[in-house]
């Protein structure tokens, strides 16, 4: 065994507590240590994911008490794939933001990197944990580091965004507590596998009520439609890499939680339809709202919400193909949207208002960044031969296989809207005249590496999707097989 | 029976304090009312056989939360309708004249 899932949480926490001390010795440590930790997490998750291919799911027991009693971490193909994605993105976000704003002092930088690292840790914890209340704790870790990171820039309206996020987050955690409590009083356990096992005993109404509370709570982080008011503001005001981390890591973790709860814990068929309908509404509202945006990051934010809606639609289809498509969508969206946020941040670097018009003519001054943004835009629209196409194709054929013809039509029609607003930006980048008061800023070398590696993934997966489809397919199998999940965990007793 | 009445009374007091905290325009009093809620809550926790929680609620809810609210009010405005802020602005204007 190469390591254990618990190290995903233990090592970053150790480092987080260590950083303030090390910072007293040499200030650069506060930038370097998180990077090392994230790199370690990536290595760990890759080696674990190789390990589980031959040895099966790892169920890690904590404090020596086997599953229904103690808390446990589950590194299954599904959670493992997401963990790998998240740690990879986390590492890239770190790499990108290493010297993102040069004039940042030591103290804020320290806070930034600690919060970033713990946000990734919290997301990974959300994905790995097998205990409902532990998931609540990790959600809080993610949220609070999110509030802190959002309000990083003192001179912007970031506090406003963070406050909205906090307000919604506080509602969410209250509702989540109510939901968890209802389940606990009915079933007497907090372990997700055991809850799933005992779920048939639960009174139908209690089941529905608890599910409603939990869905509303997790929906806040997962950006489902009426609960996502915070998202555009946060994406607009947070530093660029954090927006990428939010859309690539945090939201993915929340969607994971959503899906784990609906697919594994509950046995309500109608919940799939809920996902389908809510996802569709989210998708339509977000994509249409994005059309008339004036700010670049806000537009990307709406697009991100829309894509998550798409993933939820795919999960809502409920077949194995649907899950496969959803995971593929989540994967490609995480990569592509990070690329867009990374390159977009440099296109509007020197303006705090981040209007779309500020990208005018940047293609001439920042050719590579502009090219990467274009690549990302093309990929997210779903143009072949880039990565986004394969995921969209998987979604559409999953929907068509389930005879949801109207759904296919709606998704495609809305996709046209998406294409329009992305192309408007691309056109501005390359074919408009630069505005006099915008100053292009060359990306630093590490930001460039981060962007180029994302772009390479977009291209390589676009030409050769087999690299990830195997992993995703195993993950989908894993999610669909509820009985095995319960068995694997409870047999660990 | 007396126990029941006592419990009912303090519950009533707690809800009353909560309503007061929301309705009161003077934020300082509102915050103190919320401290009262926490205090009664910790008594209730004791009654409900949760001494650990009662201790925590007493220390965090009554003392720390109230204090940081008060400090915040001190640093911002005291009244919900921002009366004193407007007054301040008026004064500033007067001085400017």
């Amino acid at each position, binding site marked *: 065994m190469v390591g254990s899932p618990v190290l995903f949480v233990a090592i970053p926490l150790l480092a987080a507590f260590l950083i303030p001390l090390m910072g007293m010795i040499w200030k650069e440590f506060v930038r370097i240590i998180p990077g090392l930790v994230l790199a370690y997490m990536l290595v760990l998750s890759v080696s674990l994911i190789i390990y589980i291919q031959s040895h099966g799911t790892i169920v890690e027991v904590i404090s020596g008490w086997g599953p229904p009693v103690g808390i446990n971490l589950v590194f299954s193909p599904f959670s493992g794939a997401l963990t790998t994605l998240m740690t990879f993105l986390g590492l890239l976000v770190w790499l990108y933001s290493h010297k993102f704003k040069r004039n940042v002092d030591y*103290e804020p930088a320290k806070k930034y990197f600690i919060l970033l690292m713990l946000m990734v840790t919290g997301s990974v914890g959300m994905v790995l944990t097998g205990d409902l209340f532990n998931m609540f704790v990790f959600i809080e*870790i993610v949220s609070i*580091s999110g509030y802190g990171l959002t309000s990083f820039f003192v001179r912007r309206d970031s506090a406003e965004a963070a406050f909205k996020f906090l307000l919604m987050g506080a509602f969410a955690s209250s509702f989540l507590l109510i939901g968890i409590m209802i389940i606990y009083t009915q079933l007497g356990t907090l372990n997700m596998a055991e809850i799933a096992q005992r779920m048939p005993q639960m009174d139908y109404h209690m089941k529905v009520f608890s599910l409603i509370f939990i869905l509303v709570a997790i929906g806040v982080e997962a950006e489902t439609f009426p609960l996502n008011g915070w998202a555009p503001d946060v994406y607009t005001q947070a530093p660029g890499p954090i927006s990428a981390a939010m859309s690539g890591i945090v939201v993915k973790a929340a969607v994971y939680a959503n899906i784990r709860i609906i697919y594994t814990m509950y046995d309500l068929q109608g919940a799939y339809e809920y996902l389908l309908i809510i996802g569709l509404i989210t998708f339509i509202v977000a994509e249409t709202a994005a059309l008339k945006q004036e700010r670049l990051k806000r537009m990307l934010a709406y697009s991100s919400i829309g894509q998550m809606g798409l993933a939820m639609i795919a999960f809502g289809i409920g077949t194995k193909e649907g899950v496969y498509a959803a995971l593929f969508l989540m994967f490609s969206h995480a990569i592509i949207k990070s690329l867009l946020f990374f390159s977009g941040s440099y296109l509007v670097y020197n303006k705090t208002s981040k209007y779309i018009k500020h990208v005018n003519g940047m293609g001439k001054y920042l050719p590579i960044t502009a090219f990467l943004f274009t690549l990302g835009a093309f990929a997210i629209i779903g143009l072949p031969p880039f990565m986004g196409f394969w995921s969209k194709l998987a979604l559409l054929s999953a929907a068509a296989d389930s005879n949801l013809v109207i759904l296919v039509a709606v998704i495609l029609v809305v996709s046209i809207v998406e294409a329009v607003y992305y192309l408007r930006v691309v056109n501005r980048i390359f074919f408009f005249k630069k505005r006099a008061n915008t100053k292009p800023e060359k990306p630093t070398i590490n930001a460039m590496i981060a962007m180029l590696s994302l772009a390479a993934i977009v291209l390589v997966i676009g030409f050769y999707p087999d690299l990830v489809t195997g992993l995703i397919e195993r993950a989908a199998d894993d999610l669909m097989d509820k009985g095995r999940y319960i068995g694997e965990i409870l047999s660990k007793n | 029976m007396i126990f029941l009445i006592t419990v009912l009374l303090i519950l009533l007091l707690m809800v009353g304090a909560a309503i007061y905290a929301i309705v009161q325009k003077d934020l300082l009093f509102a915050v103190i009312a919320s401290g009262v809620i926490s205090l009664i809550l910790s008594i209730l926790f004791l009654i409900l056989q949760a001494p650990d929680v009662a201790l925590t609620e007493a220390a965090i809810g009554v*003392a720390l939360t109230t204090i940081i609210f008060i400090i915040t009010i001190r640093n*911002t405005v005291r009244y919900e309708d921002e009366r004193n802020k407007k007054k301040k602005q008026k004064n500033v204007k007067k001085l400017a004249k």
Partner: protein
Amino acid sequence: MKKYIVLGLLAVLGYYLMSIFLLVDFGLPHFAHGVKDVYLSSSKNILKVSNAVTAIVVNFRGFDTLGEVTVLFLSATAMSGILYKKRHDIGERSILFPASSIIRSGAKMLFPSITLLGIYVFIHGHLSPGGGFQGGTIIATGFLLMLLTYQNYSVSHNRLVWVESVAGMLFVIIGLAGYFMKGSFLENVLPVGELNDLFSGGVIGIIYVLVGFKVAAELIGIIYTILHEKG
């Protein structure tokens, strides 16, 4: 208008909440074979911890506690980030009320006893009600008292950092020790002793003491940050 809409909505919500919870009988067991039975019996028989809540918080669900400590750490970090100003425009500490000498000397006398109480509470966390959180909070209130009464009372920032970092790291290291020695994170690696002894429960007592120090340091940090804020 909005008020009435909200009131209407809340009435519906209240109706549903009440109807949910009235389905759960008050004061009666709601379920059979819950994990609580395992918790109670193992905390008494295996871990030899007399306070079952402590056993749960530190051992059975110790991972939650680690997360919780992290949440506090995060919120302290986030707060100082949110209220960060460049060094030259840090304001003076705002004092709420000018303290009279009676209060000042009272505070001076109270402070050691409050601290002592806090330490007592978290050292006996596994025996009696209370523990790391409670004790830490009590210590923090002691410092709060001093900060409020004495205008120039200050806590060394570096010392706070040391306390919280070392306490947090030790927590994780003890957890890792369990992982490397016994095979699972946070597992008890020390002999458990006898029920109701001070040195019982293995690492539980140690961890709770660490949690106490850490919580105290975090809370003092939070208060310190917000006190030095001038609007």
